[in-house]
């Protein structure tokens, strides 16, 4: 019986089941069919992430133990917020309105100095995450607005913000190019966008361990870790969205965990569970324990801990304005660089 179950499983796994398939699972070869879109019957940007599932996951994570569980796992975002606030402070300017996009409970907003910023609008998909922490934890005046960031312009006015900041939430946006365009639109001319998002190397240890475990145990792989943006794409996307004076750089936050299990628990408590459309909603125990052994063997450190890498891409871009300094035209330079260097 067990053998039969296993062989059935193998046949089903590598083929995404879609209704147009014209072959029985027992025939030797299937006929070619148009490849099934994972969002059939829709137009517009390709949907990768299940935003509804993401909202539920974040709500659940922020509510667990009255938010204490979620506060315990703020370490990655706090670390990155520290870096971002320094960059914001480097801009010697008074900001009227600042939008914190995908603010979560306000990791970055909590650090903002009221002398520099008059008002921050925090926007997040999840109501409970947004309202996790009480008002007295913020020095600056805040307004919290629960909304889907993907529909930013439905409630934030065009040309209304002096700066837009986003700390580690844009990896769940389906239409990243469109999101960047919306950010540029809500900025006032010469406004600045300062963002941090997870890059493609994020959690590569977990990704590879799960893939190897699924390959060896079940004979196929399924989407367990989201696809994330590559660094080189980010500068292209920013340019395409019409930002000028771009800065893009990367950094890595490496965290050591006792084992894979603590990493899984923490990811869940962060509200960062898998939300890829078409994910398998189930992971067999065999695959899980296999992955934990592989993680240890493939990536484990000598002291018995396992590392997890969070790659962070920092971007800075400015909305163009006639008053902004611009690069000179090609060929207008008068000094030969060879004389200087």
């Amino acid at each position: 019986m067990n053998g039969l179950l296993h062989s059935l499983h193998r046949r089903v796994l590598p083929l995404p089941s879609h209704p147009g398939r014209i072959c029985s699972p027992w025939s030797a070869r299937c006929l070619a069919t148009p490849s099934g879109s994972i969002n059939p019957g829709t137009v517009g940007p390709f949907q990768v992430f299940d935003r509804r599932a993401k909202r539920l996951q974040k709500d659940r994570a922020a509510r667990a133990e009255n938010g204490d569980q979620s506060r315990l796992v703020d370490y990655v975002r706090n670390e990155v917020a520290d870096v971002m606030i320094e960059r914001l402070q480097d801009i010697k300017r008074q900001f009227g309105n600042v939008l914190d996009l995908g603010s979560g409970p306000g990791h970055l907003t909590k650090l903002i100095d009221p002398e520099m910023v008059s008002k921050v609008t925090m926007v997040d998909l999840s109501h409970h995450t947004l309202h996790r922490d009480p008002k007295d934890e913020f020095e600056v005046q805040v307004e919290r607005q629960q909304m889907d960031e993907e529909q930013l312009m439905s409630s934030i006015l065009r040309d209304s913000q002096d700066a837009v900041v986003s700390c580690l939430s844009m990896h769940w946006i389906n239409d990243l190019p469109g999101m960047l365009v919306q950010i540029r639109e809500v900025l006032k001319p010469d406004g600045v966008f300062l963002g941090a998002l997870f890059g493609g190397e994020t959690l590569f240890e977990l990704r590879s361990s799960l893939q190897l475990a699924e390959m060896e145990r079940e004979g196929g792989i399924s989407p367990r870790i989201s696809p994330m943006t590559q660094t080189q794409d980010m500068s292209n996307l920013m340019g395409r969205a019409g930002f000028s004076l771009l800065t893009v750089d990367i950094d890595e936050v490496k965290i050591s965990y006792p084992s894979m299990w603590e990493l899984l628990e923490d990811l869940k408590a962060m509200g960062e569970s898998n939300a890829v459309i078409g994910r398998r909603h189930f992971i067999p125990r065999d695959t899980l324990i296999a992955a934990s052994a592989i993680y240890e063997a493939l990536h484990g450190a000598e002291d018995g801990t396992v590392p997890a890498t969070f790659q962070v891409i920092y971007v800075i871009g400015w909305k163009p304005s006639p008053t902004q300094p611009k690069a000179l035209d090609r060929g207008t330079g008068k000094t030969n660089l060879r004389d200087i260097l």
Partner: protein
Amino acid sequence: MSASPPPTGRILVRKLADATNSCALPAKAYGTCILGTYKDVARHACAAEFSAFKRCVQAAMKKKW
């Protein structure tokens, strides 16, 4: 504010974590086997090592699946 629901999933993960921790040796044998073939892993390439590991985990959890 409603209290959080009983975290059944977390209890299971904790149990699995403790069980795999106590089976470090067979886990290592399985991991080493995968490391040897990880560029071209086939299904059940390390079946013997895995079943030893799984037996140990099941004994530690006092639960079979």
